[in-house]
């Protein structure tokens, strides 16, 4: 395989109407409107349904724990389950995910334990899971920066002839950042196996999409970089999964990057310290609640006779068990070692840091932090 890139111009205009495979009533869509994508098989849809139900229960539980003061902050993804899980489920275990702070339920879908997902939001350490084991980068807080990391990693994989794809999530606001532009451009010029999934949840904290872009859709941005762009109903997990899966396959086959916009809505506040009533109406929220991604797939699966009452009970039990496990780990105090503050700054330890470490150790030994339970060893 040569990495010399063919410089054929790409002209793929995204569809104006968001692509969907299931309508809001849970009816399968057929014909030209599907853009040639096929509804995933029932087993796949059942699995996606299960993941969404479990993820929502997790999200609701963590939001409750945040209100109880167990977490410093939590950016909820309530309502965005189809976007998050549809996209992530299109990856293999060997592919890499580059998530943002709002993508905790995507991490859950990658098999990461709740305590490790929430380490950062509880305030224990910046990141709690092993990136290499889960092939999932640390959740990025600076906007769009992680998209470049995804481009770099997938380019390195391609240089090594490893069939690895990297998927980067971005929010609608992040598409205004310079790094989003640089990531899209590098990926297209280098033809890296990268998939960008923009979760357009309508607001960047309080700023609505029309203050973010003049483009008709965020998927339109792909055209200028010379890569395909897809404008997808982000509350239709069948469409999100099918489109992402096609993009991942295409990337793996050397076809280069793809930009996917999933149009969705953040039902909860930006974080627990946000007041969404100041920038959006209850009517808007109600409108989007009626377009719930889980209900849509449920209607379809029930109408097909694929989702039985027994299955529903079993999935609900699994979700409750996860919620209970999440409550347990987040209501018990983690053991923290303040001296570890110095352990991971450099691989090669520095004398000046060792001096500072010794000074803190002496302070702790002298009882300087005795009143702070959990801080002292």
């Amino acid at each position: 395989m040569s990495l010399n890139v063919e410089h054929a111009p790409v002209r793929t205009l995204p569809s104006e109407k968001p692509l969907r495979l299931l309508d809001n009533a849970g009816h399968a869509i057929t014909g030209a409107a599907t853009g040639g994508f096929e509804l995933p098989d029932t087993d796949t849809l059942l699995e996606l349904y299960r993941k969404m139900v479990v993820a929502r229960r997790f999200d609701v539980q963590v939001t409750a724990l945040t209100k109880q003061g167990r977490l410093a902050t939590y950016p909820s993804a309530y309502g965005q389950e189809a976007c998050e899980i549809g996209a992530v489920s299109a990856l293999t275990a060997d592919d890499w995910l580059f998530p943002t702070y709002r993508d905790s339920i995507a991490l859950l879908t990658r098999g990461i334990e709740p305590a490790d997902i929430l380490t950062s939001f509880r305030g224990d350490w910046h990141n709690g899971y092993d990136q290499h084991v889960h092939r999932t980068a640390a959740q990025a807080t600076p906007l769009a920066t992680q998209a470049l990391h995804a481009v770099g990693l997938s380019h390195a994989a391609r240089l090594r002839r490893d069939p690895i794809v990297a998927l980067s999530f971005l929010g609608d606001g992040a598409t205004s950042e310079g790094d989003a532009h640089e990531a899209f451009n590098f990926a297209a010029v280098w033809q890296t196996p990268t998939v960008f999934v923009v979760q357009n949840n309508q607001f960047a904290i309080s700023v609505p999409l029309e203050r973010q872009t003049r483009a008709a859709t965020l998927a339109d941005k792909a055209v200028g970089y010379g890569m395909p762009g897809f404008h997808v109903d982000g509350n239709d997990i069948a469409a999100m999964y099918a489109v992402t899966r096609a993009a991942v396959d295409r990337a793996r086959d050397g076809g280069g990057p793809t930009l996917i916009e999933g149009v969705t809505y953040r039902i909860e506040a930006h974080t627990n310290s946000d007041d969404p009533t100041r920038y959006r109406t209850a009517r808007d929220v109600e409108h989007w609640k009626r377009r719930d991604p889980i209900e849509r797939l449920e209607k379809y699966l029930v109408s097909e006779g694929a989702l039985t009452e027994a299955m529903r009970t079993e999935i609900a039990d699994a979700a409750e068990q996860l919620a209970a496990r999440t409550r347990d780990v987040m209501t018990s105090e983690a053991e923290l070692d303040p001296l570890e503050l110095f352990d991971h700054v450099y691989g090669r330890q520095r004398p000046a840091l060792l001096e500072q470490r010794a000074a803190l150790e002496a302070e702790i030994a002298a009882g300087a932090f005795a009143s702070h339970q959990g801080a002292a060893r």
Partner: protein
Amino acid sequence: MTATATSTPPAEASAPTQLTMAGALNAALRDAMSVDDRVVVYGEDVGPLGGVFRVTDGLHAAFGDDRIWDSPLAESGIIGTAIGMAMYGMRPVVEMQFDAFSYPAFEQMVSHVAKMRNRTKGRVTLPMVVRIPCAGAIGGVEHHSDSSESYWASTPGLTVVMPSNPADAYSMLREAIDSDDPVVFMEPKSRYWSKAPLALPVTTAPMDRAEVVREGTDVTLIGYGPTVRTALEAAEAAAAEGLSIEVVDLRSLSPFDDATVGASVRKTSRAAVIHEAAQFGGYGAEVAARVTERNFHHLAAPVLRIAGFDIPYPSPKLEEYHLPTADRVLAALDTWEWDA
């Protein structure tokens, strides 16, 4: 693909030849790429052109497009993608072309390059080198002659080094590429064409060490990169007047070699630091503070700073007024009460 974990120098050392610093850096890149195929080089114009300072001259022809290539013109993109490549096990060496061109990459540098090991408790390390041609005195127009070292040096997680001569340039770049921590490798542009007889491969002191490059008894002059030459010129002129000046080349700005600098200052009891960057909040402030904190009772006089003015770097026809000179160093030393 076979990957070699550590670089082993070619068996035969070459006979000494006159080599510029740019040539030494070129040889270091070539040798590192030869012994470790995880090393890749990219940036703006580093491919067939060989870099605007020719530091990567001939490497594209030798190693091809999978090992060294021209990136799109975007510094944040260069650093951001290098992070991903390093995460995957490559050892990217990327170029910022000119000091002030690195500013669009500031966020990637401070938020990710510097913090990745810390954020992930050491699970993700970034063995990458960011080469930054730095400082002035080459007649460059605006944005081509900045001294940005303080920004990087005050960022925990970054290692910041700056060689001042061809031998160190070769040895320190090889060590930087072998380092498992990210290294900001600053190359003083005004020294690119300085020459020295070198038999490669050459191994000088470890890159986190300062070096006494001239022995003296009365004053310690502390310089780095371009100002080591200034310090040596000042020492030469002072010797004619009977003043014995010791010159320390810091080589590494972060970490700071307190031991070598402290030993010199305790011997001479007087110290001054020289740099091109503006004085206010500049790197010299850190040097003066550290030297004073650790050696106060050995000091006969306050630690001096001889720096650029607190102004944006001037246009080429005015830069000679701004840059610290040997005369300015000597004039500054005269402000001390020598009898005290």
